[in-house]
């Protein structure tokens, strides 16, 4: 007779993944004491109550020029995505040919839209160029990668059926593009939704999109107005299939051109000076290697900032994992009654459509400055996003044994089939979470973003640029690490999870 195996012993794939995930959770718990999680606000519940009241009774009359803000938000998102796709598509065709190009794309997408905005702000001011470049540049890198992955999966049969001697362009247009068009279009559409969120966020650096009015309303405690703006934003996202219909897009694109602005006068000399001189450390430009040491030493708290960024990203990832595990049954057909499910789905959609920075900002006003609001925001937004995708996956499964109790259905029928996919999603998301972590520094959490923001504020462009490079390098490293950690047996066929 053999002995029953001990805790978590065994070689089944489920147990391997469970051990791996628990190790990650254990690492997070171990490092948690290093994080600053104090609640410094005097009365967080009172603040929450006032915000909830503002959301429940939005003050529509207080809105000054909501249509203008909406038009600009949509215009920036639309043209930012369009230009990104226009730049990204040719890159995608060459993506698998050149290592250099892959590195370049990884670099430009590793820097968050808001950081690009901060960078361009210095040269082009609060203008349409800043807003469009901030979206189009990182999106070109993302499109290049995802388009290339989609193109790689083109079925080969129609191309093989062609008579020999067909030129490359005709071959592509007749037997490749039509086969992947649907997937390319649906990914571009998903990216446009992300662009809507990013476009709102551009308000946080001063561009007059919806986020600009949201931030000032929240900051000044005008919660009725903030509630109205939030409702507007959700309405905009919910009605996207109507106003963003395929047939309306050309019209929208042309109309958006009139709303974009202002267009700055570009000073070539200033731009060249910025790129060739301001962004680089003075000792480096003078060839003074010893001076570089002193320059590096001048950067405040570099190592703690990196440590905080990584710690918050780890906490965000583990938090998302735990929340996703708890939340996905809310929106799945295997659990609950119809009304419960509708409510759960609504909750998940609202959480995933609210930008993390906005969530973090709300929690920050409630709880005071520490890592706690940032953690909550990261975990809630990403956890809800993954829970939603997992629930959709679960709805496609049919349990083999009918009539199991809910806990049995969850633990025996569904989770073992869903978990590899869930973990793979978390691993893809880890890179996004790290990028968001950096950006949360702009709210005062001591991550790299905090120092980037303040370097820009003090016009120390060389320092800001150096920190941006570090952020990008961290991002690329974490992406490589999570790709290694990701379960191999769960290939993600849905690019819209990134």
């Amino acid at each position, binding site marked *: 007779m053999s002995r029953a195996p001990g805790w978590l012993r065994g070689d089944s794939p489920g147990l391997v993944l469970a051990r791996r995930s628990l190790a990650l959770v254990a690492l997070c718990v171990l490092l948690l004491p290093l994080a600053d999680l104090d609640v410094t606000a005097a009365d967080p519940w009172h603040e929450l109550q006032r915000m909830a009241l503002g959301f429940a009774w939005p003050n529509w009359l207080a809105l000054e020029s909501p249509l203008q803000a909406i038009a600009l938000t949509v215009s920036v998102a639309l043209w930012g995505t369009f230009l990104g796709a226009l730049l990204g598509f040719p890159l995608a065709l060459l993506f698998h040919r050149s290592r250099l190009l892959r590195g370049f794309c990884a670099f430009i997408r590793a820097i968050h839209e808001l950081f690009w905005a901060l960078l361009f702000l210095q040269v082009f001011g609060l203008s349409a160029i800043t807003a469009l470049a901030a979206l189009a540049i990182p999106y070109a890198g993302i499109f290049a990668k995802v388009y290339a992955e989609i193109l790689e999966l083109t079925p080969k*049969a*129609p191309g*093989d*059926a*062609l*008579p*020999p*001697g*067909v*030129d*490359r*362009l*005709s*071959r592509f*247009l*007749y*037997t490749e593009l*039509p*086969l992947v*068009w*649907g997937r390319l279009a649906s990914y571009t559409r998903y990216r446009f939704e992300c662009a809507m969120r990013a476009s709102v966020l551009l308000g946080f650096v001063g561009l007059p999109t919806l986020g600009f009015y949201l931030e000032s309303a929240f900051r000044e405690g005008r919660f009725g107005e903030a509630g109205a703006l939030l409702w507007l934003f959700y309405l905009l996202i919910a009605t996207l299939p109507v106003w963003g219909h395929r047939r309306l897009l050309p019209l929208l694109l042309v109309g958006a051109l009139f709303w974009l602005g202002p267009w700055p006068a570009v000073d070539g000399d200033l731009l060249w000076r910025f790129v060739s001189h301001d962004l680089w450390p003075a000792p480096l430009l003078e060839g003074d290697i010893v001076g570089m040491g002193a320059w590096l030493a001048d950067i405040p708290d570099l190592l703690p900032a990196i440590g905080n960024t990584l710690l918050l990203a780890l906490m965000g990832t583990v938090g998302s994992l735990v929340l996703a595990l708890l939340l996905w049954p809310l929106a799945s057909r295997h659990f609950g009654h119809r009304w419960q499910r509708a409510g759960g789905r609504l909750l998940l959609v609202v959480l995933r459509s609210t930008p993390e920075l906005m969530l973090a900002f709300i929690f920050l006003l409630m709880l005071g400055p520490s890592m706690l609001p940032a953690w909550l925001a990261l975990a809630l937004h990403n956890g809800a996003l993954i829970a939603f995708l997992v629930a959709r996956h679960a709805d496609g499964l049919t349990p083999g044994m009918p009539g199991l109790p809910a806990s049995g259905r969850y633990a025996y029928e569904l989770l073992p089939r869903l978990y590899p996919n869930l973990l793979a999603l978390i691993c893809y998301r880890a890179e996004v979470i790290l990028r968001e972590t950096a950006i949360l520094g702009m709210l005062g959490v001591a991550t790299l973003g905090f120092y980037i923001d303040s370097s820009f504020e003090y016009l120390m462009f060389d320092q800001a640029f150096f920190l941006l490079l570090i952020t990008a390098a961290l991002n690329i490293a974490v992406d490589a690490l999570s790709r290694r950690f990701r379960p191999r047996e769960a290939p993600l066929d849905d690019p819209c999870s990134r």
Partner: protein
Amino acid sequence: MPLLRFEQADLGHGAQVVLPSLDLTFDNGEHVALLGQSGAGKSTLLGEVRRRLHARAAWCPQGHGLVPLLSVYHNVYMGRLERHAAWRNLRNLLRPYPADWQAIETLCDELGLEGLIRRPVETLSGGQRQRVAIARAFYQSRELFLGDEPLASVDPHQAVRLLERIHDRHATSLIALHQHRLALSHFDRVIGLRDGQVVLDAPSHALTLAQLDALYPDAAPAASHDGARAVSR
């Protein structure tokens, strides 16, 4: 005059040889049926013939190889893609050329695809797709027709008519199929493959159905197996 001759040829994909030391000759003006179980090497042989005779052969691949999102017209037009400049093909995607449209419509009508020329291929039935794939091969207008199971998804009645059209338009043909009666009634010569070997090569008038059925040794045991299962149930 022989069209093509294999002498002690090893055919396969890369290092993997499917048809070792093959000896075969094909003549001009001959309609040849290629029989054998799946995996016997029919597709490998057809692929190699296509590679050697590419400029003279119209090709109708297994599983159609159509583009579901494009219309019937564009799928058929693809048969002549290599004969036009890229810009012309590009314009044709946006607005079909009237002359090509007429030619392809005539071809579709002839194959029983009346009124379907504008339809995306994804909305067609299996039999209709099959006929689009044959129309595309016809549109290539070559002297030789190479087909890898081009009659797999049509009913027996249609299969006869399609096969007659294929033979009307092409002096020479080499077609893989599973319909044994058709092989005897509509072809000049039958080649049987089994496990990478040519086990049968004779004029069709000299063959019987039983000889062809012997090419499928798995068929009989599988049938008795089913029978046994039915009894035990």
